[in-house]
């Protein structure tokens, strides 16, 4: 249904750098379509990022986050094979979870 989150995890200087691109329209509910009808709000409200089952970041989003939300940050430590899981949920109740292994 929804498009997978693209996740990059690179180890650098004793840390793991994470970059992710979530696929979502992030409609703020204020835009109108070509016929002048309001496009309903549809945006991610919550994101969580886990490493090996432990939460490293939790985020709440408002509709000001750009379409296809991008996040980049760094977590201490890390090793090849670590599992990174990125989960989100939106205001309409859709959700998804994607995982990668750190190389």
């Amino acid at each position, binding site marked *: 249904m929804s498009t997978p989150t693209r996740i990059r995890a690179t180890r650098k200087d004793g*840390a793991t750098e994470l970059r992710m691109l979530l696929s979502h329209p*992030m409609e*703020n509910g*204020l*835009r*109108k379509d070509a016929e002048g009808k309001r496009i309903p709000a549809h945006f991610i*409200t*919550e994101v*969580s990022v*886990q*490493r090996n*089952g*432990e*939460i*490293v*970041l*939790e*985020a*709440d*989003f*408002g*509709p*000001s*986050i*750009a*379409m296809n*939300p*991008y*996040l*980049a*940050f*760094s*977590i*201490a*430590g890390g090793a090849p094979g670590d599992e990174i*899981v990125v*989960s989100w*949920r939106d205001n309409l*109740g859709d*959700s998804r*979870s994607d995982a990668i292994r750190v190389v």
Partner: protein
Amino acid sequence: MDSRRRDVLRAGGAAGIWSVLAAVGIAAPAQARDARNVAAFEATTFDDALRALGAEDAAESGAVRIVAPDVAEDGRAVTISVASDIPRTEQIVVLIEENPYKVAASFRLSGAMAPAIQTRVKMARSTRVHALVRAEGRLFVAWREVTVTVGGCGT
């Protein structure tokens, strides 16, 4: 160190539980907790947003650093970075003063995370971007002016 991490996770409350359970398919997302500061996210005036965040008296701090373009050509996606040099940073909130909804995102950091985050936001027009940092229950703020050539919130 360990106890601090527990505190942060506890501050996140059942959020973690939701995420973990949802990840293994036990909990439906509808059962999620409500750690989200709904009042802050629904605030349509900047003062209301600050009040909802309990941040009216937040101290301006040079230890909160915002990196953003001086001029953003396209308000639909403006790259913003916030970094905190304040020890034990637990939360980073990004606010955009002139957007219809003021709070763009609130990040709750675990002890494992470096206190810096980069994301992309929509900006309706030229305005100040504010970053609020919570550390050991205290609040610090910084802001930065961004000029927007073409607005990105739509009407």
